[in-house]
């Protein structure tokens, strides 16, 4: 069934369709409407889940760590400072191998005070041991959240689904909503091998001496290394049921392009629109959309780049002192693959600054005309 819904409604519907059992969330703009919707459908009985009200995001994540340990399916959502407050238990969730799914509605980190979009909040959590997906449409949100449960539960790794605050979260567009019976078939109830059970007591994540700790980290790393294959398999099953699928790196007109822009989130959507318009004018430009930051799809990306293409990366985030996080990842991935070309770094759209068609045309102009700086950040739309 197709309906016009917002990004946050898409996320909430996916949670309902996934038959999540425990939800704990603390409201924060622009995530708030998810917390509202979920508490509403838990209250009305539409979803037979326990909604645990908490006084902070730290408590929300801690609640889910306890709940997920008992073998149930769990969900939370947050943004910006809320995600930062969760930082400490995020490590616990991954170290304890709990398949919690979380939505982060991307919002810039204060100060100065802001409620608007950029990805700095979630990219800053890239070392916490969570899978990270980045969506560009409401359809992708509903599909990805449903898949995230299956992926997380197969890998025993928590999973974060990220999308841009307001540009996606508060935008209404048509979405094909999966039928409950189809989702039930695709996503059976969680079957936890290890769980808290008073009949069969175990200690979980207790004090671990140096002779074992490293091995647990090794296993976590191995899970991330297995992830591309598991993710591909899950999406393979998904397309069977729902006729829609996604790649970790998606190419649009990039194969024969002279200038390729790597982008993620809602910005990639506007890049797509711009590429289409520029192609109509005969310009050979292309888009590579990255859907994952963790694990970073290094091999998939390298396979889709064809030297001597001019490569730019559009980052809606900033790691001060270095630059855009996606740029760092792209550089590392291509270097590992033996790529020697220059990677041009473009920073745009911080703190909700709009990324317009003109901004993107300007980026392609600079890539094509070789006026982009290859050794420093190219700021887009900045008024210095």
């Amino acid at each position, binding site marked *: 069934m197709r309906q*016009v819904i917002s990004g946050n409604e898409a996320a909430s519907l996916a949670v309902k369709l996934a038959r999540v059992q425990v939800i704990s969330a603390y409201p924060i703009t622009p995530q708030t409407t998810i917390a509202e919707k979920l508490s509403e459908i838990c209250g009305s009985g539409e979803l037979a889940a326990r909604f645990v009200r908490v006084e902070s995001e730290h408590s929300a994540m801690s609640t889910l760590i306890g709940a997920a340990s008992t073998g149930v399916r769990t969900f939370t959502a947050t943004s910006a400072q809320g995600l930062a407050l969760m930082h400490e238990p995020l490590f616990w969730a991954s170290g304890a191998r709990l398949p919690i799914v979380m939505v982060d509605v991307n919002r810039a980190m204060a100060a100065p005070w802001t409620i608007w979009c950029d990805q700095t909040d979630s990219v800053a959590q890239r070392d916490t041991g969570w899978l990270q997906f980045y969506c560009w449409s409401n359809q992708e949100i509903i599909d990805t959240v449903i898949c995230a449960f299956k992926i997380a539960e197969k890998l025993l790794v928590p999973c974060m689904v990220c999308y841009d605050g307001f*540009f996606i979260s*508060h*935008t209404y567009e*048509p979405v094909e909503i999966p039928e409950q019976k189809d989702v039930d078939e695709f996503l059976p109830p969680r079957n936890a091998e290890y769980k808290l059970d008073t009949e069969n007591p175990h200690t979980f994540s207790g004090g671990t001496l140096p002779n074992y700790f490293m091995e647990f980290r090794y296993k976590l790393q191995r899970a991330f290394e297995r992830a591309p294959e598991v993710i591909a398999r899950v999406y393979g099953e998904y397309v069977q049921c729902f006729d829609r699928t996604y790649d970790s790196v998606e190419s649009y007109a990039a194969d024969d392009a002279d200038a390729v822009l790597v982008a993620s989130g809602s910005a990639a959507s*506007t890049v797509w*629109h711009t590429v289409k318009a520029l192609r109509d004018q005969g310009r050979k430009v292309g888009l590579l959309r990255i859907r994952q930051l963790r694990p970073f799809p290094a091999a998939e990306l390298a396979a889709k780049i064809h030297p001597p293409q001019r490569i730019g990366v559009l980052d809606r985030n900033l790691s001060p002192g270095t630059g855009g996080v996606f740029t760092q990842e792209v550089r590392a991935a291509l270097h590992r693959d033996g790529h020697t070309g220059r990677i041009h770094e473009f920073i745009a759209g911080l703190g909700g600054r*709009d990324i317009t068609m003109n901004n993107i045309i300007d980026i392609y102009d600079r890539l094509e005309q070789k006026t982009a700086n290859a050794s420093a950040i190219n700021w887009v739309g900045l008024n210095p």
Partner: protein
Amino acid sequence: MTELTFFGRGGQGAVVASEILGEAYFRDGYFVQSFPSFGVERRGAPVTAFLRIDKEFIYLRSMIYQADWGLVLAADIMQAPTFRPAVKDGARVVVNSSSPPVALPGLQVAYLDATAIAFKHKLGSQAAPLVNTALLGAFARVNGAPGLDSVLAAVEQKVPHNTTQNLEAVRDAYDSVKNLE
């Protein structure tokens, strides 16, 4: 692709209006994309909301800077210096105004007294009448699309309170909107 911008003040229902009209167009078989101007929600503050409609999926996700249509929920906003640059030359405008508004060069303007319609159907409060649904009825009439039935169905779906009164307001507006000579 057609781009519409709603101009209102916090509390008038501009954002919901963009969602309802998007729903109405969707029912007529269009792809739609509606979104607010992502401002701080302040009652009384100028608010804009956007709607794109197209025959294909809409990838463009930036704000609308020069709209094909301006839907104005409070007449005085049309006189603000920021209004004229926000719509294209030749753009069409539907404005809530009790009297014929002052014409602006290069615009085709239609107007209706949506405030009176809101009071008549007791929509919103005396201090903050809800004029959004009436404006949509007027838009459907002057544009010829989406169909009145689609607008009514969209209102019925998206407005859970005072639904009947809102439907009446849409019809009243559909019948009473006038083109500025």
